């Protein structure tokens, strides 16, 4: 009896393992098929279209001070390696300038003093990492729309690219967003966090806050803002560092 039970159990478990191995091998093989990859990528396009259709102008929820995370963890790069950024950091960013260029009528070069003199917005929002965790913090910065209005976008500008001082293995971080997000009222270039100056670990002197998107879209250590017509002109063409490197979704609203 004991023997028979064991045999049956062995049989059932080998069926289970065999079945699972077949499913896994099948799924892994499918993941490598270009046609199937196109299918897998279609979900991003669909989510982008549908979410834009239903709530292009909706505001991300804002929280009260009592709801903030007691400890807002950092992630990604916690400092930049570029000599230029390190020089600025050593000088307390006194001589830092944000360059705004690309498809604009008036390229800008703004000091932090000039940026702080522009209109500002403070918001307590939730930061959702693609990995699954969330943290709530308070951000103050200049609305990106104010910067872009000053630079005046050309008619053919369709995406706004953020070039950063930090890098992974020598490749500089960058991200891009569409104009709906660029002109969204909660999209800001933040210089303050939780009532203090934006810490280096969180991307000093300026980081993008593009609420309604996952964390990797919120470019840190922003040095240059560029308006472009096609994402294909930047990096490997997928619109961001992680998008190029490991195929994260460019549309990170989900």
């Amino acid at each position, binding site marked *: 009896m004991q023997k028979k039970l064991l045999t049956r159990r062995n049989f059932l478990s080998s069926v289970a393992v065999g079945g699972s191995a077949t499913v896994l091998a099948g799924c892994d093989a499918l993941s490598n098929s270009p046609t199937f990859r196109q299918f897998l990528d279609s979900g991003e396009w669909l989510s982008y279209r549908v979410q834009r259709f239903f709530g292009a102008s909706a505001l991300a929820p804002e929280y009260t001070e009592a709801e903030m995370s007691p400890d807002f*963890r950092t992630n990604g790069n916690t400092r930049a390696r570029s000599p230029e950024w390190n020089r600025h950091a050593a000088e307390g960013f006194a001589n830092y300038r944000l360059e705004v260029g690309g498809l604009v009528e008036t390229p800008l070069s703004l000091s932090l003093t000039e940026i702080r003199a522009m209109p500002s917005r403070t918001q307590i929002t939730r930061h959702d990492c693609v990995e699954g965790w969330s943290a709530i913090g308070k951000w103050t910065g200049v609305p990106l729309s104010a910067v872009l209005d000053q630079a005046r976008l050309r008619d053919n500008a369709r995406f706004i690219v953020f070039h950063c001082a930090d890098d992974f293995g020598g490749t500089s971080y960058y991200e891009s967003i569409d104009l709906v997000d660029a002109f969204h009222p909660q999209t800001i270039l933040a210089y303050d966090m939780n009532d203090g100056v934006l810490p280096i670990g969180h991307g000093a002197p300026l980081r993008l806050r593009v609420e309604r998107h996952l964390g990797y879209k919120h470019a840190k250590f922003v040095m240059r803002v560029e308006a472009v017509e096609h994402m294909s002109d930047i990096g490997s063409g997928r619109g961001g560092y992680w998008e190029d490197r490991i195929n994260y979704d460019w549309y990170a609203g989900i």
Partner: protein
Amino acid sequence: MSDLERTAAGKNAAPRDAGLIYRHRVSTRIWHWTNAVVLLVMLMSGLMIFNAHPRLYWGEYGANPDSPWLQIGSTADRGLLRIGNLTIETTGVLGLWEDPNGRAQHRAFPYWATIPSTYNLALSRRWHLTFAWLFAGGIAIYAIWSLFNGHARRDLAPRAAELRPRHILEEIKHHATLNLPKGEAARRYNILQKLAYIGVLVVLIPLMILTGLTMSPAMDAAWPWLLDVFGGRQSARSVHFIVAFLLVLFFLVHIVMVILAGPINELRSMITGRYRLPKEKR
């Protein structure tokens, strides 16, 4: 009788076997097998996504400095599942396991349970979020079709008599003693079956979809009431995980019942639609 049923019935105008009945319409069968594939993919890709941050919290926020109510982790040589104050050693299955190359991996769910089988958050998200659209499309069509063709009213909605406590108790007794419905009684879903299917269709699947949407920052902007319903994004993530395991539990019971009721007959009925009524005891 629908056209399909007429066609199907026409094929067997003179049935050799009076015990063979037409039980599942093609809409039910297509949805069943689509779901079988889609839900397996959603579960396994979901477990890979979970591996990126194998901790669950209650409330709006929750990250490494905060305390999780559930965590899958490891020490140097032990895999551990922590639920509240309870710690369970899970070496070999959760937290610490060997990959097919014999290498120790400090990840929550093992390779055989995830899509893809190696750690790849970008790819698992693409599987999960694309199949979510297939799932949504499938359930939308099925729901409309079931209301339209009477499946919901005729086959799924419990009758008043079936809901009497005495009847439900009797069915539980029958199931517990493996005295499953025979003959004419097996033609229809019994009350426990109906309640299980309704529970999945009306409670678990909507919870799954809504908690999934709550994890989307763009959806929280468009539909902020989602956060109020579930008490925050991290709570929604926890509920999503719990309901996923309730669906796995439903699946396990479903498989056990199929085996007990006669796997060949049951499988055939879900493939061809034809089901042999179990003979009544003489």
